[in-house]
């Protein structure tokens, strides 16, 4: 039975009303219902608590009020915008509406969404391209960095909490009602398979460290589409009882790609995704997962922090490339030695621009970002360099300056300036000073 019907006006703490505009809730779950409402002239969502525990907890409500007052740490959170007055012994909060074409992270993992029709149908859920997947990963990490920077933790990160635009990779973090100042907890523990071992064991309550564990699980599943701790050893138990869950996810979890303990390797026929993909990803990314799931299991401070994920993901974004033949690959380990990057499908090779540790294959339309070409910049979205084809000479490739300052290009003792919106031919051996402290070099072929 719905708590509200269309036309109901629910008073808000900041004054004014949220007006219910549709009879049936958009959704309902264990804790409450979500209604479509009009708030400040536009459509929003209203989360309404039906759970006795939540609707009667003064601290829980006060925490949401505080979050409304503090404001969202980043625009990518479906943050509480306003809290209602009490109505019939309960309350709720107003938040943004999710874009209607967004998909849930859980449906991405399942590879399809189940329609609410009878009979239900399966609708495929897949990113439009690998750059979209990377963009989603970067945005999740960036959102958590922003949250942790304001001293709060999410506490219940799982596959139900992320909404994604599959055509762009833009994400929204949902279910923000358990977000609280670090080390404050309102009884939430998390979801099986995403909780850090210390939470499974009950020795600690969720905090920034356990958020970082869950973040690593989310990223692992995003790339490898399998559970980092479900391998042969866990399969043997058949029945994942509470006891076994505690054992394999709390007391003695073994990472499926533990470098020295091979007892829990993924099983063919069950974990084919990770078996196929793990070997293909570069070592620097795998090292971070290994640290999170091996060293960081018990020693929570060893879990990678957001900025480490960020730099690995930004590097991965640049070091993945799509050849004009349609072949996708990551830059191979020997690219630095050979001075070029070769498409494993068709054999075509591309020059490579070294940006710090990052090896950027200079295929048409390849880009670099402000955080890679400007000293001190952490802007991972602003494109400052793009590989373009000369408009007058077909087949001649160059680097276009999309930044707002001049570049200095050095080659064999010569030097020239490249102004914003201008380009320069790609020549092996050239060095580009993007600013006084940042430069890149196009490798010489060997």
């Amino acid at each position, binding site marked *: 039975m719905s708590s509200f019907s269309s036309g109901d006006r629910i008073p808000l703490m900041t004054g004014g009303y949220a007006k219910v505009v549709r009879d049936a809730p958009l959704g309902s779950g264990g804790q409450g219902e979500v209604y479509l409402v009009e708030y400040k002239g536009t459509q929003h969502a209203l989360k309404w608590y039906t759970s006795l525990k939540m609707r009667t907890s003064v601290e829980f409500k006060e925490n949401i009020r505080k979050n409304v007052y503090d404001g969202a740490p980043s625009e990518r959170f479906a943050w509480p915008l306003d809290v209602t007055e009490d109505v019939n012994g309960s309350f709720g909060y107003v938040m943004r509406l999710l874009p209607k074409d967004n998909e849930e992270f859980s449906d991405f*993992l399942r590879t399809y969404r189940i329609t609410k029709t009878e009979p*239900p149908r399966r609708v495929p859920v897949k990113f439009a391209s*690998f750059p979209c997947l990377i963009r989603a990963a970067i945005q999740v990490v960036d959102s958590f960095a922003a949250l942790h920077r304001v001293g709060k933790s999410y506490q219940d990160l799982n596959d139900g909490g992320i909404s994604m635009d599959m055509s762009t990779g833009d994400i929204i973090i949902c279910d923000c009602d358990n977000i609280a100042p670090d080390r404050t907890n309102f009884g939430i523990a998390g979801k099986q398979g995403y909780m850090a071992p210390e939470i*499974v064991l009950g020795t600690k309550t969720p905090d920034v460290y356990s958020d970082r564990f869950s973040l690593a699980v989310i990223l692992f599943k995003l790339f490898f589409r399998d559970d980092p701790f479900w391998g042969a050893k866990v399969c043997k138990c058949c*029945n994942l*009882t509470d006891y076994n869950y505690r054992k394999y996810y709390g007391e003695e979890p073994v990472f499926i790609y533990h470098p020295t303990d091979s007892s829990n390797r993924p099983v063919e026929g069950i974990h084919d995704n990770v078996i196929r993909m793990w070997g293909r990803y570069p070592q620097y990314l795998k090292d971070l997962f290994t640290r999170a799931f091996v060293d960081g299991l018990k020693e929570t401070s060893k879990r990678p922090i957001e900025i480490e994920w960020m730099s690995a993901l930004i590097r991965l974004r640049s070091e993945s490339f799509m050849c004009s033949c349609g072949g996708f690959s990551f830059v*191979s380990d020997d690219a630095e030695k050979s001075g070029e990057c070769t498409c494993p499908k068709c054999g075509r090779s591309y020059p490579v621009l070294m940006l710090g540790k990052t090896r950027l294959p200079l295929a048409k339309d390849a880009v670099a970002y402000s955080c890679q070409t400007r000293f001190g910049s952490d802007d991972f979205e602003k494109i400052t360099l793009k590989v373009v084809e000369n408009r007058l000479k077909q087949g001649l490739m160059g680097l276009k300056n999309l930044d707002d300052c001049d570049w200095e290009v050095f080659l064999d003792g010569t030097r020239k300036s490249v102004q914003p919106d201008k380009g320069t031919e790609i020549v092996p051996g050239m060095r580009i000073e993007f600013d006084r402290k940042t430069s890149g070099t196009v490798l010489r072929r060997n």
Partner: protein
Amino acid sequence: MTGEAFDPLEAEPIARKRLVLFYLIDVSGSMDGQKIGVVNQVMEEVIPEIRNVGGADSDIQLAVLTFSSGTSWMYPQPSSIETFQWSRLSADGMTSMGGAFLELDNKMSRSAFLSAPHLSFAPVVFLLTDGYPTDDALGALEKLKLNRWFKSSLKVALGIGDFDRDILEAFTGNPELVLSTATGKNLAQLIRFATISSSTIGSRSMGYGSGGADSEDSSALKEKAFIDMKKDAFGDEQNPTVDDIDMDDSGW
């Protein structure tokens, strides 16, 4: 090894853990009419609701066993909630609850309904009845209780009207896991609550620090979670057993 062509977007659905919800439903003569009508209706309604419970990594399956003069499975194997179609039940005959317990014991094994190589969550078992067994249910229950899958499962019973509370309490092992309705008026609400909450518990969050997982077959954590959800939904003082005493009992 990097540097080989592959498609990072091409993937199989993530491996899922199976959660089988067993329903043991009394379809004896006394269930005929409104009661079985409510069961049919609410099950048709609740199945779509639990299709997304548990998220990506749970494969919720249903196995429905009816008992009257004999026992019968709705389908020969548990079927995934994604495709499960409820086949409407009718009621007639005796109450072979003991027969149902033995049949459940038969199928709760790796060689039957819980086959490898799948990894399963501990199952959930619902028992719904409105009367007294007409066979040796207690003896059968003793045998069923030795089954390790059964031991670890979350067991919930729903009793309607004048039912054998002792056997239901023996079945669940905990009086708080016996939900009851004096007349069946809120039967739909109870079935819906029990199904949704137990599929959530079976496949999802566990409270931290609750202990209770000390023995391999224990279902204590899940029982506690279910009882917490019951209190959260119906309130502490308001036991769902007594909230419909004024309802009309005619026409059954």
